[in-house]
């Protein structure tokens, strides 16, 4: 019965599960590229001179930072998208429970779904990593960031690591969502009675505050370290702040909606604010990759530009290129991850969108509502990223360069904002445009 339930769920929710599958494929590819690159930097065939050159260029540290970021981001987004995909099965799980499926059978089914999604996606991601990694190392060589002797060396040793990370995260994300979903009383789930899903628990709030506060305090500590140590430690400070922001995300989004409510007239903007407040929990999952990517990129860009402005030297060209291109790759990954999370959230709102259409919302008006929601989410993400980047960077700038004023080139700022707003718009508006093409009556369940 268990595999029957799993097969049925995989068939019925295949489009919802595409989100976590894509994220895991991409996450596995990026992690595998970084792992294989790291292995290539210390390959046995490398000459002593090349090894010295690699160490002197700081590529080992840079790769380690990108690897850490990739693992963190992948873990986070895989957990979020898997969680959303399983939560969407609330009604099906309630139906199965009402006809006799035990919680244990359903828990296994959810875990099997996570494995069924994660395993092929991870293996495909590792396969994709070979040409991508080869291209990445070739680019590093071409820009003198690596000596000519370094060759990309793919190895199967990454397989257990990548599959372990992806599978573990996917299973944990699914298990957490499954536990909550399966625990819901079948009668309540079937009658679409919602619990109070807007509010987060006191433990989550306390942990979020602790991580944000700890991150800010950590920035002050990190600023007292030597420059190269501070650079590596700052990443962990930023990660702590971003996890804290993710945990507090629903509160932040509801607060943003509450602040704007008196300022906006009735009609569509008010409906958008109502929706953001009501959906603050799933939307908060999309904030984290956006905030992390923008804060990370902001720190990298501002640190290098401010250093160049204060010291008068832009730094070694190879190092600059590596920093910029690595940050761009990381931001692209985060952008796709955010896009994925947004699409997963939107797809799970299909019935709600159908209800809005039945209540008299034209497709154009629905697009305006979700565009307004997207604008609010993107603006919140930009502001939070600015705060996180500022809290991490400013003490370091003051200690190492004697300035509190970070410099960010206008084109970089414009590109960052365009990317953030573009990703959020694409992840909300496009799915709505596609979903609302089908008749609302069939999607609402009112055709009966």
């Amino acid at each position, binding site marked *: 019965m268990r595999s029957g339930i799993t097969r049925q769920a995989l068939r019925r929710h295949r489009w919802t599960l595409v989100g976590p599958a894509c994220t895991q494929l991409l996450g596995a590819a990026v992690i595998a590229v970084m792992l294989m690159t790291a292995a290539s930097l210390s390959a046995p065939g490398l000459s002593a001179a090349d090894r010295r050159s690699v160490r002197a260029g700081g590529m080992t540290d840079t790769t380690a930072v990108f690897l850490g970021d990739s693992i963190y981001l992948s873990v986070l987004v895989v957990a979020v998208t898997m969680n959303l995909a399983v939560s969407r099965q609330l009604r099906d799980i309630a139906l199965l429970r009402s006809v006799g499926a035990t919680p244990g059978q359903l828990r296994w089914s959810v875990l099997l779904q996570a494995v069924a999604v994660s395993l092929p996606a991870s293996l495909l991601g590792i396969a994709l990593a070979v040409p991508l990694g080869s291209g990445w190392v070739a680019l590093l060589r071409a820009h003198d960031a690596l000596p000519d002797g370094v060759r990309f060396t793919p190895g199967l040793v990454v397989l257990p690591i990548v599959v372990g990370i992806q599978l573990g995260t996917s299973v944990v994300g699914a298990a957490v969502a499954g536990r909550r979903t399966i625990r819901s009383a079948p009668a309540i789930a079937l009658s679409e009675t*919602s619990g109070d899903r807007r509010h987060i628990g006191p433990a989550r709030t306390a942990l979020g505050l602790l991580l944000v506060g700890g991150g800010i305090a950590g920035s002050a500590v990190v600023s007292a370290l030597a420059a190269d140590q501070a650079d590596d430690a700052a990443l962990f400070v930023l990660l702590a702040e971003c996890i804290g922001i993710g945990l507090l995300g629903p509160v932040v989004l509801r607060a943003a909606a509450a602040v704007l409510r008196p300022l906006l007239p009735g*009609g569509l903007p008010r409906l958008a604010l109502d929706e953001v407040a009501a959906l603050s929990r799933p939307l908060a999952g999309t904030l984290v990759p956006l905030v992390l990517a923008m804060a990370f990129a902001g720190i990298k860009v501002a640190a290098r530009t401010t250093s160049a402005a204060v010291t008068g030297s832009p730094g070694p060209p190879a190092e600059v290129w590596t920093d910029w291109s690595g940050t761009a790759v990381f931001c692209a990954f985060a952008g796709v991850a955010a896009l994925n999370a947004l699409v997963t959230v939107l797809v799970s709102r299909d019935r*709600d969108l159908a209800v809005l259409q*039945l209540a008299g919302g*034209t497709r154009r008006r629905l697009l305006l509502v979700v565009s307004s929601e997207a604008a609010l989410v993107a603006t919140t993400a930009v502001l939070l990223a600015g705060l996180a980047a500022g809290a991490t960077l400013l003490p370091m700038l003051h200690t190492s360069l004697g300035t509190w004023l970070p410099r960010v080139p206008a084109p970089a700022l414009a590109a960052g904002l365009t990317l953030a707003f573009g990703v959020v718009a694409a992840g909300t508006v496009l799915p709505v445009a596609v979903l609302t093409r089908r008749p609302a009556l069939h999607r609402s369940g009112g055709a*009966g």
Partner: protein
Amino acid sequence: MDTVVQLTGVSRSYRTGGRETVALDDVSLDVAAGEFVAVMGVTGSGKSTLLHCAAGLERPSAGTVRLVGRDLGRLGEAARTRLRRDSVGVVFQSYNLLSELTVAQNVLLPQRLGGPRARPLAEVLASVGLAGTEQRPVGELSGGQRQRVAVARALAADPAVVFADEPTGALDPTTGAQVVGLLRTAVDTRAVAVVLVTHDPRVAAASDRLVLLHAGALVSDGPTPDVAAIAEQLAAVSGAPQAASR
């Protein structure tokens, strides 16, 4: 009285698996303002399809549907949606509310989507017996209360016509009677036309006019008799005995 719904020779067929199924076969029907019409028939007789075509939720395969004087066949999807938002209320068996939003936010949805200024919220909620529930999430309400919210949303813009598709199907008889009573009151006090699809002769007994469908065709149309006579008519049409009540 003005005709608010006019179906002329309306047919609707579906093609599934290479087979064509006729859900509605050449049905003509006029509904005047302030008229309460109950549509009955056995499962698969075309009741819901008739209601969906009349409300502009589905396009007929043939025939003409005029809603508050507008030919729906000449309107695009957006124009039909606007017409529904401004002049029509729809109540479904499955409520079709946004369970994360509050009662007030659900009732005001058509207005928030650009519809006409609604009747005062407090008045609408009081009229359906939900005064003081404005800020409660609808997910916390009972089935009967949620259907009242759906009725309030349908009546909030003071529509010309309300279409109700099995609105009591998920409710107990007492609660169902209360919901039908709300629609009856709207007909009597605000001259709203109501087209209600139901299986239940007791629900249909609240209407002024009874329309019976069988195999997609309109087989009977006249003043609504008492509950027992409705059950007899339905049984005669379907060829099976029908209980007078649930």
